[in-house]
């Protein structure tokens, strides 16, 4: 909630009309891939079954991390909440590894 408020606040870009030309006084830095990775890992750590596991970009949710289908859904919801986006079911079904999830989130963040 708090996060989404900040996000929407950041999107409102005040501009002043000076001789028919609007000037923006600041730019928002696009999110870097490293930032996506650290935030994603932190979010995944909040999932009970992942707290002890060693997460890496290559690890597959079901094979390496030993999650069942329920835990995988849980991990994806944790990521959705962290980045304030929704992963459509079709794409969620195809995401098998942490790296794939990070890539999807990174691409979505670039579109903002």
């Amino acid at each position: 909630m708090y996060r989404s408020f900040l996000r929407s606040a950041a999107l409102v870009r005040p501009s002043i009309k000076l001789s028919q030309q609007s000037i923006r006084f600041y730019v928002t830095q696009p999110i870097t891939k490293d930032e996506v990775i650290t935030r994603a890992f932190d979010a995944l750590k909040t999932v009970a079954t992942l707290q002890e596991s060693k997460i890496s970009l290559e690890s597959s949710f079901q094979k390496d991390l030993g999650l069942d289908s329920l835990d995988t859904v849980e991990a994806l919801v944790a990521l959705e909440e962290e980045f304030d986006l929704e992963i459509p079911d079709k794409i969620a079904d195809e995401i098998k590894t942490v790296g794939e999830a990070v890539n999807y989130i990174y691409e979505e963040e670039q579109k903002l």
Partner: protein
Amino acid sequence: MVQQKQVLKLYKNLLEKAYKFDNYNFREYAKRRIHDSFKEHKSLTKPEEIAQFYNNGINNLALLTRQSTISQMYTFDKLVVEPLKQHK
């Protein structure tokens, strides 16, 4: 017959609603409760039992939707146990 996909979808919807609670205690309780009850009923095999559990979940989803909406109408102070989000 309730399909696996539907169950997962219900689980996802429930969790998404649970995250919407502003109050830390409600949020964590809802998440834990959803997680535990799905794990507990993981081994159900009879279609009637699954259907009953599924319908129960649908009712709880309605309840969660109501309560998390109400929860957002009030402000809550952060508890000391809550990790603070660092915004850069």
